[in-house]
């Protein structure tokens, strides 16, 4: 049984994630995104960006390992092995770009049990090195309740 006392709480801020050109290009290639602003620094600058730009869902890629390490912590009581991704949303204040150092804070927004499943909503707030909000992601995760 997941620990419901977590609802409404947030985790300590993550270590900064350094966004690299190489990782952005690798991610863009993996989703078939061939826009030059994701691959070429000159093209990104010509379009008004300081460096290459990450495709929008890259934000969730930054947060997933942080979510995983929280959910694998036995203290929370979550069955990670049977977890399913229910829904996902992303809001961007600006595009993520190479050179960003992003700190994530995970907020436990909701936890409920219905029809034999635990449903957990985690919200991640990503801020840059100046403390400005960059992105907000929300994931609803489902796992089977122990029978």
């Amino acid at each position, binding site marked *: 049984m997941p620990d419901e006392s977590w609802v409404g709480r947030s985790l300590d801020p993550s270590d900064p994630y350094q966004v690299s050109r190489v990782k952005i290009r690798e991610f863009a290639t993996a989703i078939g995104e061939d826009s030059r602003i994701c691959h070429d620094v000159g093209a990104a600058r010509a379009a008004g960006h300081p460096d290459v730009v990450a495709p929008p869902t890259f934000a969730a890629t930054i947060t997933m390992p942080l979510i995983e390490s929280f959910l694998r912590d036995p203290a929370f009581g979550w069955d990670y092995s*049977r977890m399913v991704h229910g829904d*996902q949303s992303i*809001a961007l204040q600006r595009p993520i770009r190479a050179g960003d150092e992003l700190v994530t804070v995970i907020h436990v927004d909701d936890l409920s049990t219905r029809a034999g499943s635990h449903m957990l909503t985690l919200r991640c707030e990503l801020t840059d090195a100046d403390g400005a909000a960059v992105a907000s992601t929300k994931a609803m995760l489902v796992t089977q309740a122990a029978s």
Partner: protein
Amino acid sequence: MSELTTVAEGDELPPLTVQVTRADLVRYAGASGDFNPIHWNDRTAGAVGLPGVIAHGMLTMALAGRFVTGWVGDPAALRSYGVRFTRPVVVPDDDEGATLELSGKVKALTETDGVRIAKIDIVAKFDGRTVLGRAQAEIALPG
């Protein structure tokens, strides 16, 4: 992109068909760091009751996002985006892989601080059935 200056509510986006192969899943696993074996190992997928290896939900979401940003021609223009994962995309171990059919429609047009924002309803289909629910994106239109 001149047609974007005359975008109206109800307009359909040009549809996009994407083939997703096992190689694409391996590449996405590496790029995203999601190495869950249900996305590359038939034995694991079968053991948890899936009909076969399935695509990462986040890959399907990313491809549907690319469909919308490709329409505008700018991956930096997306403001918000949300989906529900309603059905898995099963990716067979062959050369064609799975076929994902993407279509979308302009649900609403608004203006914020002088920027035109299009709200897009997205439909993603695999095997004739939708795999994303409530898929909606808000994207800034140029000019």
